[in-house]
Each structure stands twice: as C-alpha cells, then as structure tokens.
C-alpha cells in the first residue's frame, strides 16, 4: 500500500530557477527510499513539497492513507541553542500540546534511543556535530513519525560518525516501522541505507531511474567490503552518470 504518491510535480522559484521538472514517485509503507542526484537537482525541494513546506506549481502530492505524522531532519541539526538536548527533543510534543509528563518521558526515551541518554541537560554548544545530529533525530523520533524526511542529514559529518549514524538510522527506522525518504549525493550512503534508490537528473530535476536494492538482513562494515555491495553501488553510479549526461538509464 502506498503511503505517498507524487505525480508530475514541478516547481519553479520566484527567482526563475526551475528546481523540479517533472517528478513522479510512489513510496511504499516501510520503504527506505533515497533520492540521489547532483547538487542543485531539486532533491531538497521535493522533500519540502512532501512536507507541505512548499507548494508545487503543478502535479499532486497524495497520501492514500491520509497525511502521516511526518518528521523532518535537516542538513544542519537546527537545534534551539537556548534549550537543552531534552528541551529540543520535547519541542514537537510541546507544539502539539502533548501533556508535559508524557512529553518529557517520550523525549527522554528518544534521547536514550539515539545513544544520548546521559546528555539530556547538555546545551547544543556543548555537543559535537554528530551528537547534535543525534538530538535532531531524537526530536523527529519523539513525535513518533510514520514518514521521516531527511535532507542530507549526515553530509557535514566525518566518515566514522556518518557510518555509526547510518547503522543507528537503519535500526531505528526498522524498529518503529518508519518509512524514510532520504536525500543524499553519496552513492555509497544510498547503497548502504536504502531499499530503493531514485536517481535524479540535474536541474530541472526528474527521476531518471529507480533501482530496487536487496540489502542483506544485517548490514555492517563487512558488507561494505563485499563485491555484492560494490556491484550495487556501481549500478547506482552508472545510473547517476547516465542521468547527469542527460540520458535515461537503461
């Protein structure tokens, strides 16, 4: 059953930039769908349209099962510097006027689940880049999303932190049965995380190819080194190269 269907989405900004040309995409519940494409191809714009933060000029965004509770994780952690980690994780619940005790309990749990159990009272400036991103993920999880939109969330992190967060994200999304729509320009990240990859062309962005992946039950560092992983990454790479060259992938 589809949780989200985009049909013929187009978006041109007031500046005249045609960000999104014609994007159609169906997302199944439980999918981990990654949008891969060159910088500026409108990936982020698609996410913002799905979130309802932008209105498309043409096309339709449909939620066949009703609009799911949606979380958004930005490229920057986007934390409130004046609030503690716990205060930040509580934000969506407070905005939704969840009773205080329940909001507190859910924020505490969310921080524990991202591995920041002992850091509830820390302010963002006291946390490392990776920890801030974990708070940002905890904030999204606290609201118990069915659909999680992630806009290059780990792009600014070092390789080691990024891989740790990739593993945690796979686990958390699976535990909660969250459907993830993920944006990245890293082929390896998309190979590692996704059940499906949609490759986009340069601006104005279109979907050039959709690639279904079949990741093993346990994904770990060893899997990254296997020929199978390399072959999957190569498929995405080739599709991306073809899309960038202006041809449809075979």
């Amino acid at each position, binding site marked *: 059953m589809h949780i989200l269907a985009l049909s013929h989405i187009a978006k041109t900004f007031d500046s005249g930039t045609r960000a999104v040309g014609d994007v159609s995409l169906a997302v199944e519940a439980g999918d981990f769908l990654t949008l891969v494409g060159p910088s500026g191809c409108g990936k982020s714009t698609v996410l*913002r349209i799905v979130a309802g933060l932008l209105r498309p000029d043409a096309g339709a965004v449909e939620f066949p099962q009703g609009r799911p509770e949606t979380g958004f994780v930005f490229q920057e952690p986007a934390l*409130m*510097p*004046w609030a503690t980690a716990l205060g930040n994780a509580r*934000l*969506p619940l407070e*905005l939704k006027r969840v009773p205080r005790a329940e909001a507190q309990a859910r924020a505490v749990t969310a921080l524990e689940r991202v591995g920041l159990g002992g850091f509830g009272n820390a302010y*963002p*400036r006291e946390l490392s880049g990776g920890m801030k991103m974990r708070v940002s993920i905890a904030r999204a999880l606290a609201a118990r999303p069915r659909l999680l939109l992630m806009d290059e969330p780990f792009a600014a992190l070092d390789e080691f932190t990024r891989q740790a967060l990739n593993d945690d994200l796979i686990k958390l999304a699976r535990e909660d049965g969250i459907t993830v729509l993920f944006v990245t320009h890293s082929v390896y990240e998309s190979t590692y995380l996704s059940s499906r990859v949609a490759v986009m062309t340069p601006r104005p962005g279109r979907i050039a190819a959709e690639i279904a992946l079949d990741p093993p039950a346990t994904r770990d560092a060893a899997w990254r080194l296997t020929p199978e992983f390399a072959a999957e990454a190569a498929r995405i790479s080739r599709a991306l190269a073809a899309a960038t060259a202006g041809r449809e992938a075979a």
Partner: protein
Amino acid sequence: MNRALRIAVPLALGALVIGLWQFLVRHNGVPVYVLPAPSDISPAFRDSFAELMAALWTTLQVTWIAFVLAFVSAMLLAVVFNLSRTVEMALFPYAVVLQVTPMVSIAPVILIWIGYEHVERAAVLIATIVAFFPILSNATVGLRSADSNLVDLFRLYGASRWQRLMRLQLPAALPYILSGVKVAGGLALIGAIVAEFVAGSGTATGLGWVITEAGRNLQIAKMFAALGLLSAVGVANFYLLTFVEWALLHRWHESAVKQNA
C-alpha cells in the same frame, strides 16, 4: 586574565590618575574654579551629601521609569512590526526621524507642552524617546533572525503564531534585544540629564540640575562631585545590565560563553 586582576588593574590605573591629578593641580597652583583637586572635591561631596543623594534619587527614578516605558513600548511595537510588514514599512521611517533628530533640540518643545511645573514628567518622556530606538531596532532585527529551518519545523508541527513568537522568535531575538537594552540604559540616563539641562529652572531637582546650578554659582568642586556621582551611576547601570545579559545568555549564547572563558 583572572578575575582579581581584571578588577585590580583598572582600579590601580584609576588610583594612579587621581594621584597624578592631585599632584599636578597642587604643584602648578591651578585655581579651584578652573580645576579642583580631588582633595577639594571630597569635602564638597560631603558638604552637599544630602542634596546630592536627593538629586541622585530623582535622576535614578526618571532613568528607570523611562527605561521600563521604553522597553515595554519598543518591544510591543517590534512585535507589531513582526506581525505586519505594512505597519513596519509605514512606521519605521518615523521612528528613525525621532532617533536622528537631536534630543536637545526637541526637548524645549516637550518642556513647553508638558509645562515647567512638571519637569520630571518631561524628563521621563524625553529619556523614554531616547532609549526607545535601540531596543526597537534591535528587537525588530532579532525577531526576524530565527533559524529558517526551525521556522519550517514549527510550521511542520502546526505551531500557532503565538507559539512561534514565544518559543522561537523571542528566544532567538534575546541576544539582540539585550545589546539594545544595554545601549538604551545609558541613553535613558543621558535623556534624564539633558531634560534638566534644557529646563534650566522650574521644578528640576535631579543631578542635571545640580550640575547646572553649581556651574552658574562657580561651585566647581560641587559640580565635579555631581559629575563623579553621575558617572558612577552610569557605570553601575551598565554593569547591572551586563550582568542581566550574562545571566540570561551564558549557558547557551556564544557571546556570553566567550566572556566566561
């Protein structure tokens, strides 16, 4: 530098300057009506102690009332500006006119309107006008400075206009507002003194009046005593507001964090 040194060094410099001042005035026989020595000022301070304290109290009341009025009205107007771009476009240029027109030149008109029998009310109004603008302009910018991703997040979670203001825009504006408040605190004191200078008579009873009157009577030592008191009040006000800023920001804001280090 450690805390003790940070207090000791300026104090030592102050003592040195006062000692040098005392020596130069005595050594060169400078007449007291040109420049009184520190040893002339302290008896003048003691002799007029009651009068000076009463004047100080008046000036402080005017300053603080004006400061609070300026703060409340500037914050309210900044919020209105934030709610309506049209109102901001219409009113902001006039706020600037009020700011750039030298207060000494408007003060006589205000005194005439309010009347010389209520100089303290005119002083409150003048000091309020002077202190108003830095808070307004800083708060207006500050309310617009919230992280755009957070603004989006508030929208995504269906925040009300009120929630956005109270939980996002005001906290984000706080560092801006506080630096405006520090400037405004100094200006409110200046406004309170200027009003009395301009009034020159009537029912003025603050430090501004003591300075004017002592100058006319050639009581230069008393004038210096009042001046010293005025500076001390200005400095105390500034550090009080700096402390408030530190107390509100030190846990999270970079500017205050760096002061800690």
